[in-house]
């Protein structure tokens, strides 16, 4: 299959990539750019582990063809911390015991960012609603919800 050139801004940096028309964004991020924080969990959009931001919208990279993000700005888990400083959501996850095996966490933190950008003070129910498409098998979501609330507090103070 013929490759096509796409231009994207990934975690603030411009990139030009050659991709096949059937290539998934997940595989481009992981295999071509070495951004392995974005995880494969199911390949069918059921677990949310592959969630990234495309133009600030959460998207399942396992169901997104790379050619469709031409011209877009993409944020992956690797793009959240700036100058070695954790994003407040990452900091809250670390401090609230929200991370166990950690495999689902990149996708959930990305979703939490999308949520808090849109709704800075979500209720428990709103957080649960945002986590609908995410599977975490370790935490029972309890400390994840607590961490998102703590991040919401920290971000409103900042």
């Amino acid at each position, binding site marked *: 299959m013929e490759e096509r050139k796409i231009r994207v801004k990934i975690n603030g940096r411009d990139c030009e990539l050659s991709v096949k028309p059937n290539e998934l964004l997940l595989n481009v991020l992981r295999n071509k750019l070495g951004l392995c924080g974005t995880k494969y969990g199911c*390949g069918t959009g059921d677990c949310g582990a592959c969630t990234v931001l495309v133009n600030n919208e959460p998207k399942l990279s396992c169901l997104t063809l790379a050619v469709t993000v031409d011209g877009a700005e993409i944020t992956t888990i*690797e793009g959240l911390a700036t100058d070695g400083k*954790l994003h407040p959501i990452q900091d809250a996850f670390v401090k609230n015991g929200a991370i166990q095996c950690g495999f689902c966490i990149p996708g959930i933190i990305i979703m939490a960012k999308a949520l808090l950008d849109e709704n800075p003070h979500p209720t428990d129910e709103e957080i649960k609603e945002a986590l*609908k498409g995410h*599977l975490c098998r370790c935490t029972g979501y309890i*400390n994840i919800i607590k961490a998102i609330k703590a991040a919401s507090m920290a971000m409103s103070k900042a």
Partner: protein
Amino acid sequence: MATQYHTVGKPSIRKDAIPKATGQEKFTCDVVIPGMLYGRILRSKYPHARIKRIDTSKAEAMGAICITFEDVPKAKYNERIVSVPSATFKDRTVLTNKPLHVGEAIAAVAAETEEKAEKALRLIEVEYEPLEPVFDPIAAMKPGKPSLHDSIILQDKVVEIKNNIAAKVEISEGDVEKGFREADIVIEGTARTSRVYHTQLETKSAVVVPEPNGGVTIWTTTQTIHNCRILIGEIFGIPLNKVNVKKISLGGSFGSSIQMNSVLPITVALALKAKRPVKMCTTREEDMYDHCRYPMILKYKLGAKKDGRLVAGEMEVIVDIGAHNIQAYPLLGCTAGWLVSLYKMPNLKFVGKAVYTNKAPACAMQGFGNPQVNFIAQTMMNEVAEKLGLDPIEVELKNYVGLGDVFWGQGPTVRSVIRSCGVEELIKKGAEMIGWKNRGRPQDKKGDIVRGIGMARGFHTSSAGGPMAGEAVDFSGAMIKINEDGTVDVIAPLQDMGGGALEAGLKIVAETLGVPLDCVELAPTDTCNSVYDVCLHATRGVYAGGGTLKKVAEQVRQKLLEFASRILGVYPHALKIRPDENLKQGVIYAEGISGKEITVKEVAATARNKNWGTIAAVDSLRQGQCPPAYTVYFVEVEVNKRTGEVKPVRAVIGADCGTVIDPIYAVAQIHGSFYRGLSYVLCEDTKYKRRTGELTNKGFLSGYNILKAEDMPNPDDIQVFFANTYEETGPFGAKGIGEAAINPVPAVVANAIYNAIGVWIREMPITPEKVLKALKEKGGN
């Protein structure tokens, strides 16, 4: 108790939290080796078949490396070697020519890209001779049914398999007939528990590099790097010093990697044939056909006196183990043990049978038979209490196995005496917190939406240790060394499934050495640079793994103090160590003598400069006990009598894990276990199509019912508290917690449903359909 410690008992941030929060943590699927090929597996379309012909020539013509049954070693093995050889049943090979379930591996390929490997897979021609499958364990035992395994290997002897019965365990204590005659009340019941898929987020994967010396270097999803090494060495005839399995983070497991995952030996075979590194990451569909929890049919009869004291119990268990016997024999022994250790029962009979069927093989999953037994035993005990007009709490307190009693930690061969027990404290405090006395009676609850409160208690062993060698191997090993700048390397092959066992281990090391936690790091560890550790299972991480680290750290401390003594001129036994957070160092000092102080760094540097050697130790530890960790659950559910939906709304959870090493992660483990238990009892199950033997969801998560965040009670409605206990045989008084926290969850939900609507439902998962059916059978509302 914990206040005397500087690190143990205090909350800390686990070392892997930041790498995991920033996407930097590496898992097997993230390993990249220059020049590596990508592997894919061809899997059986049929639940039971013989491969008449398999032709890989077209795939090979396009440049793919291919392997079939003809290319792999023929000696049978068992992928789990936690048990001693006399209890390890060998029934499989790396690839098969007689697949026993849909999804069983029959061939594999490796190629430059995943796409090319996928293409090669499609070019392999297979001619199957379909055989009659059998899916129901009871039918499978009947004469004339197709046999899955005619024979297996046990300790190098061929053992014939009859009626598909893979293992049988019978245990009898006292005289049950006499016991039932003496009982004032006898009740009988049957429970069915589900075939839960582990749903760990990371699918099973392996990366294998063939080395010039004929050996292999391996990264894989595993709970035990050393057992993977031994197995690969045995299967492929490679000396163990040439098999190096590297420890890497595991994206969840819950038991599904207690065995060497099937993907590993296949990847090794491909890499050896290709003479190139091979990476194989399985898809979710493949993973769902690879492992599940042991489902059981449990028939139980119990007899009690009027005051609620148990006098006899008889249990018959049939386990549907699927296509391979990974650990059915130890499972049956453990299952009997969990019953024996739940209630003091003077007369007991247990018969367990494990039966082969043409389904994905079942293996360990959190609790290992314990939630299944707990489900029937605790719901029927509740029923006895209700029938006798007694408070279920009172009945539990009369019958529980506690302080001074004998506990079966891992079946009949692993027993020890209980030295710490917080059951009574947990039950009484929990009852108070939930408002047990005001829970009401089902017959008084009106309306379509009613609430009920249930109680159940459980436990799990901490390790498979014990005074005598049982049928399970159980010891850990570690090396600890102090570096020239006063920092500490911990080389521990123990795995961490995510629960934080290793973080607890580091805290135990920091506490023992008297250095700040920041000074202690886990060193990259593999099987060549570390001593043996059996496996992370049986809730042994903190108690046995942590116990080992404490033992080794004590030896390091001794050496450190001897060296400091030479420098300071103070007897080593008069020296103490305190962590100094400003210096970021441990400081060794003689109490009350000024000027007699030196940092760990200065001692280590002096030892180097004066050629005294490295301050280090390496050792192994077998725990001589298997103390139970206890949990007590009080859960409130809301039942909608029109729709049959059950929603958990509130929980009070008490846990006795001895000294709590880290309050944040101990609670987090309980949260997770509560969640998995709820999902287990309310919705999870893998079902098979009767005609084709395929999973009804075809292996897609979209067709697998599982609880999500929205189904959980709010964080403020889940309260967790700990008993004030100290386990004298554990590191700083600690026991385990992990599996204890899931075991009573199915039962507590069923008991709460009874309290809401007055019916006992003992068939998992308790779906809305089953609730409605039970209500209908009860007759009206």
